[in-house]
Each structure stands twice: as structure tokens, then as C-alpha cells.
């Protein structure tokens, strides 16, 4: 079986580097006005590596931001009096970034508010059952959970198997198509599952990557939905009950040979 036979997952990530930074700041409960730049930069780089590993189509802006973070980090290392000599008006090297984050945060909050209105509104109909109908969207329909929540769960699963990897001599071949079937079967059986359950029996990094990509693909195809009771709590996977589209990856297709 060649790599081309494998079902290729094409996923665009519409979140940008600022989304990731705000996510990390919130997750670590750090003060946005006093970001521990070294720690956040390390985490940021880790998430970028994970997204690369998943072959997600991430924006070039992520790389630009990585460079910016590195630059801020190096400037922070300079003693304060030297720093002020070099850049006269500039106060804290983090300031530009902080300003940008705070501004974006305001719109993010506004978006959350709009989401509340949207949810209330979807239960209101005018005379003769009229309602405002939106067209289906082409992006990952993530409302309650951000892509970074998912990647964070993926990271946890990976770190669990990292140690065992050396023992693995006969690499088992898994495909995204197979994993799609496995997930749908689990959901049919149980109705809903925890994201951590998905990785429970996964023994290798390769298997975890396939499982994770299968899950993202199922979200994209609107076969499953992910939910979270609170921010950073466990992620729940629920079937949507929608009929599978024709382009649904099928296990037989890939494992036939």
C-alpha cells in the first residue's frame, strides 16, 4: 500500500497564532499583561509541532509569530537599562503583543455574546414557521471546543505512549479510514464517548495520529460533534445522526490490498 492510497485528510485551521496564544494564556491562567514569555513560547512551539505532525493546513502567520516570540524573549533577556538605551521609547518588549491580544480578546468576547443571541434566536420562528436559514459552511463546525482544546487532548494521548514507542518493532499500519469506522461504531454502541476513550487502546503514535485525524474528519463531515461542559474540561463526542456523505472514507477501500 502506498501513501497515495491512504485517505488524505484536508483540514484548514481558521484559527491563527493570536487564538493559540490566548488559549495558552487562559489555560495556564497567566496574567495577559505579564506574560511569562519563555514558558508561553515553549508551549507555543510545542503546539506548532503537533499541528505539523497532524499535517494540518496552518497559516504562515504561525511561523511569523514564532519569530516574534523569539525576538521578545531575547529582548527580555537584556538587562533593563541596556534595553532602554537601545530602544528609547519602547517600554516592555511584550507591549505590542499584549495590546494586540487584549484588543482581539474584546472581539472574542463580543463573539461569545453573539453566539448566545444566535442560540436563543434559533428557537424563534415567525409566522408560518419562517426562520433565518444559513447555508452550510465549509469549515470545521467547532462551536464549543476550539481546535487547540483538541490538540491539547491529542498531546496528552501522545505523551502517554511516548515511552513505549521504543519497543515497537513491527509497526502496525493503521489508516484514517479504519479509524473512522471504529469511532462511528463506538458512537453507535454508546451514543456518546469521551475523547480520552478514543485513545485508550491506541498503542502507538501512528495509531493516535490516525485516530485523531479520523475524528477531525468526522467533525468536518458533520458526523460527530464535540462538546465540553466547561472550558478545559473533558471533551465529549456525540453523533449528529446525519447521513454520511458520499465522500466518507471507507475502511475497505484502503485496507483491501
Amino acid at each position: 500500500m502506498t501513501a497515495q492510497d491512504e485517505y488524505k485528510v484536508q483540514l484548514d485551521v481558521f484559527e491563527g497564532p493570536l487564538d493559540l496564544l490566548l488559549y495558552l494564556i487562559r489555560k495556564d491562567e497567566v496574567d495577559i499583561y505579564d506574560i511569562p514569555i519563555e514558558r508561553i513560547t515553549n508551549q507555543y512551539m510545542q503546539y506548532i509541532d503537533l499541528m505539523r505532525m497532524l499535517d494540518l493546513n496552518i497559516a504562515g502567520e504561525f511561523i511569523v509569530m514564532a519569530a516574534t516570540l523569539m525576538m521578545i524573549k531575547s529582548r527580555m533577556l537584556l538587562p533593563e537599562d541596556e534595553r532602554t538605551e537601545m530602544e528609547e521609547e519602547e517600554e516592555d518588549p511584550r507591549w505590542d503583543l499584549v495590546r494586540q491580544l487584549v484588543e482581539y480578546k474584546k472581539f472574542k468576547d463580543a463573539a461569545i455574546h453573539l453566539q448566545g443571541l444566535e442560540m436563543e434566536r434559533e428557537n424563534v420562528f415567525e409566522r408560518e414557521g419562517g426562520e433565518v436559514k444559513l447555508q452550510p459552511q465549509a469549515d470545521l463546525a467547532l462551536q464549543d471546543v476550539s481546535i487547540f482544546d483538541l490538540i491539547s487532548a491529542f498531546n496528552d494521548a501522545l505523551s502517554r505512549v511516548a515511552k513505549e514507542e521504543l519497543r515497537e518493532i513491527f509497526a502496525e499500519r493503521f489508516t484514517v479510514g479504519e479509524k473512522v469506522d471504529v469511532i462511528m461504531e463506538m458512537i453507535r454502541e454508546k451514543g456518546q464517548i469521551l475523547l480520552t476513550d478514543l485513545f485508550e487502546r491506541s498503542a502507538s503514535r501512528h495509531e493516535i495520529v490516525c485516530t485523531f485525524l479520523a475524528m477531525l474528519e468526522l467533525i468536518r463531515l458533520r458526523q460527530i460533534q464535540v462538546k465540553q461542559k466547561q472550558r478545559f474540561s473533558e471533551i465529549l463526542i456525540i453523533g449528529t445522526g446525519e447521513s454520511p456523505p458520499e465522500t466518507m472514507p471507507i475502511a475497505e477501500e484502503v485496507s483491501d490490498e
Partner: protein
Amino acid sequence: MSEPQVIPELKEIVGAMMFASKGSVSVGQVRKVMKKAAEEGTGAVKDFGRVSEKQIEEAFAEFSRDLHEAKLGFNVAEVANGYRLENDAGCGVWLRTLLEKGKPSRLSRPSMETLAIIAYRQPCVRSEIEAVRGVAVDQILRNLLDMQLIRIIGRSELPGRPWLFGTTEKFLEHFGLKNLNDLPGIEELRRMEEQILKKEGISPQGTGEEEEGQLEFEADGESVTGTENTESEE
């Protein structure tokens, strides 16, 4: 034309109009209808031809209050161009089943954030949105345009004359907003917008609600920002 035996109150008439109309009913519309009916009518019908817009507005308010107090599962909603009847949100679950509506369509988070920036900042160009979000938004803009939540309202004077985006009537409807002033926290976010415009040396312009539905620039026609260039050079 036959005259009613029991003369109804004005609020009953506007209520009946909302009941019978598929869309919304506006004050102006009621007045026009009453005038027209009075031309051919006699007695009470003729008398109602003289009601003022203020009286009609009061009638809508009274009807709305009575209905709300009676808790009958539906209410009067004030929408962009008038009043209409719609159900209580609490009863929506059953209506969804009755009307076989299926799953509601919701926006994804990145789409919602992009839409929020446009809603609060309009009219705005793509680069402004990208400056806030820190990432390219063209795909999302295309989706939002397809969904008719935003539209192109003109071209900016900036180099390259980029498109200016604004929200649509459908946007207001989707979120149940009367107008753009109804947006949560509009005051604060608008103030912020003015500061930024000042910083970039762009003069602030109408922030929106009065332009909604009235701005009809051709895609490549006159620019919306052109107010400061109006003096003619002869």
C-alpha cells in the same frame, strides 16, 4: 364596503394585521392602509383614516404589552422594518419538531469572531479584520458572503481600493437585533474603533445603523469614505 358592527380598538386592528401578514408590519404601512380604507369607507372606517403615526405606535406597544402579560406563547418582536409576531423562545423546541426544521445552523467560532469584527467595525476592509485576528480571513469572508451575513458595501480609498465589508439585514435577523445599536457592548467597541481610526489618520465615518439597507453603492462605484474629498477643484 361593509362597516364593522362592533368598532374595534386600534390595537386590535394592528394585532390583526400582524396576524395576517407573513412579514413584518410597519407604522407607515398601517397608516397607509387606514387612509386607503377611509377613502372608500364610512363611519368608523373613515374616522380611522385620521389616526396619527404616534397613535399607531402606541397601539403596537399596547398590543405587545397585553400579549406579553397574557403569556400565550408568542410575542410581538420589533424588527428592522416594523413589528411582527413570533413565538416565545421557550416553546421553540416543540416548534422545531412540529415544523420539521431539523438542526439549527450555527456559526463556527472563527467565523463568529470575524463576523463580530465586521459588525462592530463596519465599514471595514479585509486587512483591518486580519490585523485584529492575526490570520488570513479570505476563506471565512467568502463563507460569510455566501451566507449573506455580510456584503460588500463599497471600496475604500486605501491603496488598491480594497472592498469595504458590512453586515446585512439577514445578520440582524439571524441574531434577533433591531439595528446595529442593539449589538451588545457597541459603545465600548465603537469608541475603540474611533481611536484606531484616529491613530491611522482615517476620519471616522457613520458607524452604521442608519446606513443599513440604505447604502447602495455599486461594487466599483463611489467610495464610502469620500466625504472629505467633496470640494471641487476647478
